[in-house]
């Protein structure tokens, strides 16, 4: 893991960048800590990606094929016809600058090439040069430039300094979405075998083993059994999760981070405790064991290949509908791509909650709903009993993950749940939440170790907003519904806002959920004492101390002789 400079050094940048030289004349400097390792050839080979080869971003020679320019330009031409978004966004930008200070990477680095408009111009300048008459005729005069290796490297550096969060798009008067441009840029880069290890590794894993983290079926089962043991220690309930079971009503798909690592695992325990409590007829799948989709950060085709497993497995198992866990880009894919790629899911039924009878018409075609929709509906129909005080040790704020906010609009459901399960909930500043939410800085496959400085910088605006509510309200818990958030926020919080823990919404649901009248749990999902338990213990200790004091008093009243105490 790259060493991150101290906070003072990191915040020494200015948002008024030095603009004396023209951006086209400013060379790209590859700074250690700001980029990821190169893809390993074997990972690219696994999924038949072009030009697997050994190279490194810091090398002078990237081992490009002889005809690389032709490949890139043909690739652009192809995509200009296939994606109206791409063609339009190349054409209509007026460079008004509204997006300039909306990007968390600009806000955290002050690097002018991280202004979305300029990051897009990196590609637009090539578009003009090779695909427009004015660019061919007037070149630099109209903002066109030749495609060179330096340009390609610049693309690589900056298209991996974009998390496809779409915040710029919310502010653009034409809706120009840098995510679309980054997606196209990465597709082009991918044509030359220039992906990153942190993306192509999980893609290869997911393709072969069904999940990003590369767990084989037996490991998934044992991991989850281990979590169920913890859950039994906490709640006294023995839960038998079901895997690959034909005829279940619901296929439950989560991001693999949720059954793999802290703190996602607590959220996962929360899901399964809730399902067990409801007696839900669900099954997990080891084949479709990934909700997320790192393929989405390489090519549209790869994303579709990985995503195909979910419908295929739903069909094989004969389930009625699909329930999805808390994840960010997973839900961009489920909401905006899955049905188009791999649908129609006419072998499934419109999701219907077996508990409340609610039919989820908003998922009438995909047949897949988000777990916060499912749980919010339960709460609305009074199907769950909560002891909010079990979350009293947590002062909670909520981070909208970029994709559920700006590619779906799932804003109120998680808030509705949070308000039902905890007493201390505070929003971060208005300009940093909901559709204006700020990215964790690690999305779209940037949550590696070697680019830690980039992540700390990109996440700074979010962390700064957390710091504000920590200082104002004593917030100590950052909740979210995104596996990348859960994986990346702990490091971000440790760096900028120490003392703030990171939790999924369903972790807190499970804390507060009253299973039955005998449920007098002492521990939360992290096996830490619940506030009630702490209070009880303290009260007992106090009482014991009081009694001891009384006894001592009584004894001293009786003027005990030495040694009587024994």
């Amino acid at each position: 893991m790259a060493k991150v400079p101290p906070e003072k050094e990191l915040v020494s940048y200015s948002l008024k960048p030095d603009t004396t030289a023209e951006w086209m004349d400013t060379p790209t400097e590859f700074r250690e800590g700001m980029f990821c390792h190169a893809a390993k050839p074997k990972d690219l080979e696994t999924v038949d990606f072009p030009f697997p080869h050994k190279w490194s971003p810091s090398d002078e020679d990237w081992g490009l094929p002889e005809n690389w320019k032709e490949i890139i330009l043909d690739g652009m031409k192809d995509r200009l016809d296939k994606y109206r978004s791409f063609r339009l966004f190349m054409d209509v930008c007026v460079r008004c600058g509204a997006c300039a200070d909306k990007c968390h990477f600009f806000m955290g680095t002050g690097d002018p090439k991280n202004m979305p408009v300029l990051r897009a111009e990196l590609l637009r300048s090539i578009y003009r040069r090779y695909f427009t008459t004015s660019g061919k005729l007037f070149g630099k005069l109209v903002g066109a430039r030749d495609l060179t290796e330096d340009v390609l490297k610049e693309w690589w550096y900056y298209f991996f300094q974009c998390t496809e969060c779409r915040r710029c798009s919310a502010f653009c008067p034409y809706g120009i979405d840098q995510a679309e441009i980054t997606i196209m840029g990465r597709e082009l880069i991918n044509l030359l075998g220039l992906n990153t290890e942190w993306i192509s590794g999980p893609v290869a894993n997911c393709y072969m083993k069904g999940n990003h983290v590369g767990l084989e079926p037996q490991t998934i089962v044992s991991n989850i059994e281990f979590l169920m043991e913890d859950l039994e220690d906490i709640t006294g309930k023995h839960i038998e999760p079901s895997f690959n079971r034909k005829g279940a009503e619901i296929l439950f798909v989560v991001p693999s981070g949720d059954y793999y690592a802290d703190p996602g695992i607590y959220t996962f325990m929360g899901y399964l405790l809730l399902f067990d409590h409801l007696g839900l007829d669900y099954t997990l799948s080891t084949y479709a064991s990934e909700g997320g989709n790192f393929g989405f950060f390489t090519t549209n085709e790869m994303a579709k290949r990985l995503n195909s497993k979910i419908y295929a497995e739903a069909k094989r198992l004969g389930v009625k509908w699909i329930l999805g866990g808390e994840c960010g880009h997973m839900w961009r894919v489920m909401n905006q791509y899955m049905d188009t790629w791999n649908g129609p899911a006419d072998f499934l039924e419109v999701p219907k909650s077996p508990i409340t009878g609610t039919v989820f018409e908003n998922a009438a075609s995909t047949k897949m709903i988000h777990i916060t929709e499912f749980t919010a509906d339960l709460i609305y129909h009074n199907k769950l009993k909560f002891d909010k005080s079990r979350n009293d040790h947590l002062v909670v704020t909520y981070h909208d993950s970029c994709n559920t906010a700006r590619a779906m609009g799932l804003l109120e459901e998680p808030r509705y749940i949070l308000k039902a399960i905890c007493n201390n909930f505070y929003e971060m500043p208005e300009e940093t939440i909901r559709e204006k939410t700020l990215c964790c800085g690690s999305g779209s496959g940037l949550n590696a170790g070697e680019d830690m400085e980039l992540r700390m910088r990109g996440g700074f605006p979010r962390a700064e907003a957390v710091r504000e509510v920590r200082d104002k309200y004593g917030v100590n818990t950052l909740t979210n519904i995104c596996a990348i958030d859960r994986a990346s926020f702990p490091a971000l919080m440790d760096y900028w806002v120490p003392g703030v823990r990171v939790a999924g919404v369903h972790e807190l649901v499970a804390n507060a959920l009253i299973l039955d009248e005998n449920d007098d749990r002492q521990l939360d999902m992290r096996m830490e004492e619940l506030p009630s338990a702490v209070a009880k213990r303290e009260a007992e200790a106090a009482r014991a101390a009081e009694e001891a004091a009384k006894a001592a008093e009584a004894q001293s009243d009786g003027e005990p002789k030495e040694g009587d105490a024994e």
Partner: protein
Amino acid sequence: MKVVGPLIVVLALVGIAWCCTEYLHWYALFGLVIPYVAFALFIIGLIVRIVRWARSAVPFRIPTTCGQQKSFSWIKQAKLDNPSSKAGVFGRMVLEVLTFRSLFRNNKVEKRDSKLGYTSAKWLFIGALLFHWSMLIIILRHMRLVLDPVPQFFQILEQADGFLQIGLPLLYISDVLIVVGLGFLLARRFAIKKVRYISLSVDFFPLFLLLGIAISGIIMRYGFRVDVAGVKEVMLGLVTFHPVPADQLSTILFVHLFLVCTLMVYFPWSKLMHAPGVFFSPTRNLANNSRAVRHVNPWNYPVKVHTYAEYQEEYGEKMKSVGLPLDPEVVSTNG
């Protein structure tokens, strides 16, 4: 260079129009041929560009959602910022096109040491509104030059625009505001470092050109006080394809007209296409209903996948070892 160049070009255009009509008396060229050619190029260019966009596919439904989705009856949907129906999309587009809703959302981030602050930033929104609305009103006002009789709507609009009753001829509010708007948009390209940095010559050129058009129009009206009836006769002739000689018209009118012709020729091949472009933007003109209604990708094609059968073939033994059920019905393509 990116500022001076475009300025020189616009000044040169002014000079050319002036010399060619004032001294060379090429009235037919500047009053007849060029306007026809420019208008034809404008229309052809528009069609070519729009058809090119339209032919490019919309494979996915990718609206940028800026509010609550439609889920439950008891959660209020942001019907305009996150539309799920055609009506909602229409509303969103109307707000976007007529009121620049996304620009209204704009804010400004400021950094002090290790703190970030967000402040309101409505100037760009105001400047953009000033310019675009003035431009629209001015174009509509010009309709009186090509329509006879002038429909009441345009008469009322003209009266409203001159309601301040200042000077003679009456001062149009839109004339003042368009110059203010353009001046502001130009000034911020100089004043705001970030915007200056991203600006290209092609960002300055249309501003200078439009300023040239506005200023020449204003000078024509308030300075030279051109004969409006005479202008109308020529314009009517042009649009009815019965041109009348334009020799008696003032030179400043030819300058104005030539700059407008330049704009028409330039428009379809420039960023000014953002005007029709906004209607095509997939992040704005699509409903967020892709879970309820299937969106079809016209070029969707089958892809190579790793099937369950292959998976079971590879991991069957390991699955058995932890008691996972094996599916007897699947047959691996490999085996």
